[in-house]
């Protein structure tokens, strides 16, 4: 009893000290209240109406924000630049996609209740063993967490134990996602090859095309983002997070003091992969497709730029960065598609040269100029 109250008080204190986080959580709360109201509660011709398209788009951004948050944990706080983080996102997405495929049942083009369309098309006779269990939501949900987590655990165990660090780690994570992309492009893998998984009909019996389902998915994305944010913030302010930051700043010293550096890194990496997997699982029912393109190294590296633009080691910066850049991407690709890659490329260069701490750093710098009282309130000054 006492322990639990201790836990809750520190948790609350942690969050209260976190200004950016407070803003973020409030915004999320507002979105969770008003978006469903404005979409479901108003008519289409009402000027305040938020279209389902916008809801889905926002939901997509929230999933990306969750993904960015998970990368910020490993990169911002621990200095592990994973260039293959998108792989965990995609794996989570595939796990969810497999569940959604099984839900199609006999409503596919070939009307085969036993096999998904692409397997019928490839003349497969029976369901591969690794598809067993995906008829059940609980199993798929478990896999969303387990598969990215297990991959990250094995990969991290191998990498951190043999002290692969810095750019080497970045490159082998990139090779990891590249290898996975090539593998998932193969039809023989049994994940739909090039086309991936699509044509989903419903989730837990609710039609995916209905506004209510879309809004619920949006709501869940926002909720999970808020929860993961709170958990990450708590962890990073706890002793675990302090050790992680120490490892980032001076790995050898942390090791010499007696911390098992590789264990800390491994758990953090696994946690981040799990969060990325959850983000992927939320993403797939909203966009309605998952294909091997999600594994492409370019996706993972774009993700790095979201975090870099928002500001590393702030958590809320990563969320903001993901939102801003994806909004810009949507805007550019619809109006000036050829400019987008120029803009993205320039962004990489500008941020690394002139904005090493991202937008959050810019805000903080302005705050530092303000009276010192304001600075001491900022929970991030220590980090």
């Amino acid at each position, binding site marked *: 009893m006492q322990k639990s109250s201790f836990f809750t008080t520190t948790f609350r204190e942690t969050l209260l000290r976190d200004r950016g986080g407070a803003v973020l959580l409030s915004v999320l709360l507002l979105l969770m209240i008003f978006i469903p109201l404005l979409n479901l509660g108003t008519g289409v011709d009402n000027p305040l109406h938020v279209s389902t398209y916008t809801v889905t788009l926002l939901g997509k951004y929230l999933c990306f924000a969750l993904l960015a948050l998970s990368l910020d944990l490993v990169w911002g706080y621990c200095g592990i630049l994973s260039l293959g983080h998108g792989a965990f996102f995609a794996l989570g997405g595939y796990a969810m996609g497999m569940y959604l495929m099984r839900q199609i049942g006999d409503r596919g083009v070939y009307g085969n209740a036993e096999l998904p369309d692409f397997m019928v098309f490839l003349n497969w006779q029976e369901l591969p063993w690794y598809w067993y269990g995906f008829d059940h939501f609980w199993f798929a949900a478990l896999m969303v967490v387990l598969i990215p987590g297990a991959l990250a655990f094995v990969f991290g165990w*191998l990498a951190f134990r043999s002290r692969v660090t810095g750019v080497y780690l970045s490159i082998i994570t990139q090779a990891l996602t590249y290898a996975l992309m*090539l593998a998932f492009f*193969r039809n023989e893998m049994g994940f739909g090859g090039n086309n991936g998984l699509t044509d989903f009909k419903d989730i837990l019996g609710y039609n995916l095309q209905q506004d209510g389902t879309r809004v619920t998915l949006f709501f869940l994305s926002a909720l999970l983002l808020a929860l993961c944010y709170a958990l990450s913030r708590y962890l990073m302010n706890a002793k675990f997070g302090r050790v992680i930051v120490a490892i980032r700043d001076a790995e050898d010293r942390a090791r010499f003091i007696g911390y098992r550096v590789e264990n800390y890194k491994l758990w953090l990496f696994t946690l981040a992969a799990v969060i990325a997997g959850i983000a992927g699982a939320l993403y797939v029912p909203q966009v309605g497709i998952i294909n091997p393109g999600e594994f492409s190294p370019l996706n993972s590296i774009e993700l790095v730029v979201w975090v870099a633009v928002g500001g590393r080691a702030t958590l809320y910066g990563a969320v903001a960065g993901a939102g801003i850049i994806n909004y810009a991407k949507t805007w550019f690709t619809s109006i000036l598609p050829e400019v987008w890659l120029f803009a993205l*490329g*320039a962004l990489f*260069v500008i941020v*690394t040269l002139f904005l090493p701490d991202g937008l959050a750093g810019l805000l903080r710098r302005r705050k530092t100029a303000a009276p010192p009282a304001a600075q001491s309130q900022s929970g991030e000054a220590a980090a």
Partner: protein
Amino acid sequence: MKSLHSLSTLLRVILICGVTLGAGTVAADAVPPDPLTETATMLANGDFAAKEAAIERLSAIDDPRVLPMLQAMLAGNLYRNDDGRLLQSTGSDQPVTVTDALSGQQQSDIAGDNLKKISINNKLRGALRSSIAVLSLSHGDAAVRLQAAQDLLERMDDKLVPLLRQQLQTESDTRVRRVLQLALAFGDINANDSQQRLQAIEILADDGQVEARQRLTTLLATGTDGKPLESDAAVLAAARKAVARIDSRAELYGFAETFFFGLSLGSVLLLAAIGLAITFGVMGVINMAHGELMMLGAYTTYVVQLLMPNAIAYSLFVAIPAAFLVSGLTGIAIERGVIRFLYGRPLETLLATFGISLLLQQLVRSVFSPLNRSVATPEWMSGSWQINSMLSITYNRLYILLFALAVFALLVLVLKKTRLGLQVRAVSQNRAMARAMGVRSDWVDALTFGLGSGIAGVAGVALSQLTNVGPNLGQGFIIDSFMVVVFGGVGNLWGTLVGAMTLGVVNKFMEPWSGAVLAKILVLVFIILFIQKRPRGLFPQKGRAVEH
């Protein structure tokens, strides 16, 4: 003339014979029709069976007019006009000339004539080819005889045997002799005399091609009772040995071919990776835009070929220095403009150069369009080197392999023997000490980066001869070339050479049983595991500089 058509068919044939002879007289007791004219008429007017018989008879007639006539017929250039005369055209060559097949007279006015093509079917086509080949066997040119003998190889039958034996006695060219012997062996393999069969087996084993192996395996066939059909134990043993010999040879050549493909892939990896081995290995700079510098080199080749469309053969020799300059200068610009502000921050360098790679890709897309551009392969690089009947090597892969080794050797020389190389090595080993000794480290950095980038450009020229030139050309190589550098050992050029060749060969040897994509995945997984065990690669750099 009109009245002739009303006469009976028999009379008409005779009349036409007269016309083709140029006699023009309607007299049955005139000159007796010579066999050539007679069979030619059969060819012109008969049905398919008659035509076949005519072809056979024609090939027995020793007349120089026969071969061109048969060739024209095979090519569909033999016609019959209203008079039933055979005319042959020169086919699609402009201007088309039409000559009388027998008299050889050029026909100037054919506009009014109703020409009918002498139609042929597949059976006739086969008969024509055989006849042409038989006739060509006595041709004066050895190359024509060789071709004829090879054609006959595919359509051997018993009737040809005496003819070939006769040819073999007079034939002097060894290559033609070998083919003739092989053709005879195809028949002799079923001869009654077991000695003859043994000889045939010997010849077939020497040849060792698919067809020969197939003939040999027919000897090994077993009857319904499970016993071999061949009664002579010696022949059976010889045939078994011959098949085994062919198989082991095929395996050897297959191995050699795969090995060469592996080296070829390795040479591409080497070209892609040695530039990186300098910028990453020597300077410690991660240049994610390296692939795009290669792409620039490939596009430079394209532009050079646009500028000199009449001298494609020499275009590569212009393109190589041009690509070196274009990519090298771009590299120096990148180093001066971005990278030098980021020394000591490898992860930031990685991100910034990745941004540059996106910029360069989009730039090329905007300037040259997102579609692939085709780069011509010079004459001297196309075709292949036929080492023997089972092994051939394409010239472009061979030249690129040699080129990669030459670039590598040159680079090693530059680093070991020149002043710049000395300074580069000094800066890479101990920057502070090198500066203290008076080396202008920033100048060395820029030049080193320029050198590495220039080599990427040169690699692009080579790649333009192997793959499509498009904005995504470089993207596919960046991970592979990093793998090579990391696998071989950072900062060690020889490691890069060994790493590239090993990965290339391993990849190609795995492909047959795992498929190309899976082979690539397995290699990637292997390297990931390898780095765990030996984080500094195959040939780690020794010395104090190694630690951080």
